[in-house]
């Protein structure tokens, strides 16, 4: 239950880790769109190559990327099978009973799988190499212009960083209370559905009580330190745009051009 996708950040010093989160966000946005331009072996090859280079440069052990994929791999396999079975294009390859597999279906299924995989790998790479706080900062700045039309971007970003910050705390707290109640004979793991739901109450009530208390204390601590919203606020972590960030943007543009030119 503690294997939650948020906060799966793997600390590191690789070039991908050190990229500006804004650039990473923009690049992923571009990538997710241009992946749909690919429609033949060369263009899909480029997409795959880009993903593999990304993984290699990030120096994140492959295990972690696999863990991010595990949840989604079934969907990919399912999509692949559907495509293979129900696309009737190209030469007929195999025909057993009611199953007819066409070359077009096989290739189509493969392409869609690659597309999904590439998108997931690259977005996983973002969360693996960027701290949640950096991602939030990046989003806040990128969405900054929307403040002009009175959208409370800063407040959203603050809410997001506070939630992210407190996920581990709450998990820890959950674990602690779970243990305390288990020691008093609570059984969270067995019994009927009704019993299990009932067993959650002794966990939820203390959790809510402490979460509210914590929220109040946090609000007080923030006010005591002079927090008064977005107005005139400077940043502790100033995001820096460096050469490698420009380089990534250029690479993304080149990739876009390449895909546009090479697609059939």
């Amino acid at each position, binding site marked *: 239950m503690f294997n939650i996708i948020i906060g799966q950040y793997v600390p590191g010093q690789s070039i991908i880790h050190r990229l500006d989160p804004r650039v990473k966000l923009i690049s992923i946005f571009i990538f997710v769109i241009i992946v749909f331009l690919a429609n033949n072996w060369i263009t899909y090859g480029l997409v795959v190559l880009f993903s593999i280079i990304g993984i290699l440069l990030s120096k994140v052990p492959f295990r972690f990327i696999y863990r991010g994929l595990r949840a989604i791999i079934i969907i990919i396999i399912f999509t692949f099978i559907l495509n293979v079975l129900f696309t009737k294009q190209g030469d007929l390859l195999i025909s057993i009973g009611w199953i007819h597999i066409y070359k077009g279906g096989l290739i189509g299924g493969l392409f869609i799988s690659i597309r999904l995989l590439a998108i997931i790998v690259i977005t996983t790479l973002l969360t693996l190499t960027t701290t949640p706080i950096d991602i939030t900062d990046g989003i806040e700045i990128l969405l900054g212009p929307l403040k002009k039309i009175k959208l409370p971007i800063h407040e959203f970003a603050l809410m997001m960083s506070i939630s992210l910050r407190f996920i581990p705390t709450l998990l820890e*707290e959950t674990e602690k209370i779970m243990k305390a*109640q*288990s020691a008093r004979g609570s059984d969270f793991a067995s019994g009927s559905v009704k019993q299990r739901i009932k067993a959650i109450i002794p*966990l939820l*009530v203390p959790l809510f009580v402490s979460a509210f208390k914590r929220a109040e204390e946090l609000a007080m601590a923030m006010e005591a330190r002079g927090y008064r919203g977005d107005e005139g606020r400077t940043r502790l972590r100033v995001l820096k745009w460096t050469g490698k960030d420009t380089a990534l943007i250029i690479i993304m543009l080149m990739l876009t051009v390449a895909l546009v030119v090479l697609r059939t």
Partner: protein
Amino acid sequence: MDITVKDLTHLYNPKTPFERIALKDINVQIKSGTFLSIIGHTGSGKSTFIQHINGLLKPAKGEITVGDVTIKAGEKNPKLTALRKKVGLVFQYPEHQLFEETVEKDICFGPMNFGAAEEEAKRKARDALDLVGLPESVLNRSPFDLSGGQMRRVAIAGVLAVEPEVIILDEPTAGLDPVGRREMLSLFMKLHKQKSLTTIMVTHSMDDAAFYSDEVMVMDKGRVVMKDKPEAVFSHIEKLQSLGLDVPETIKFLLQLDERCQVGIGTPVFSIPETAAKIMEMLGQGREKGARV
């Protein structure tokens, strides 16, 4: 109830890059009826160790035997209910576990989980409430309306109501004022004697460890460094200090006195009357030796 721990090793986050050894080859025997204090630096494995005694964590290696229940690494856990009924665990800040609408219901939660009928649980709740020194009038109040100290007593009553034979306390006095601390500790001392419990207390206070316990266990980096009578443990002053621990105030006082008397402090003492006697003795010896005191 005897507790035997053999070669206990515990890993945090096994098989990930964050793997960390929390406990390493712990071998400990705790005889029935002992008041054992566990001291050690933050992160020395004290809390992890006590959770194993309640079966809340699974050992990576080794085994733990409490009474007739044995938990072995690699084997499926035996029915833990029997174990948890006999081993009461009071966590740090136990008041955080309160959840019911009334004090009575909250205290009954434990006994009823362990199969007591409602009437029996209610009787146990009243007994436990009496043990922790709260009036029966709080039974029908919400636990969240009580003061911090009272909430802690209710939470402790919730553990006592199960009538355990072993009671484990994780820093039971954290966050209490001096009076509250003294009351809390004498409460546990009284229970320990009255019900001939086996008590295990994790504490940061060297004074409490020295004064209340039959035995003191010192932990460092997941290992047991010393386990002996308080007098023996607290005579290794330098060793304790090298582990980031301290010695009780009484010993500190006697050590400073001895700088003037130069007669040696002999067996460590921890209570005020004993210390007073010791001071007189040291002063007498010091004068005989011609020290200017």
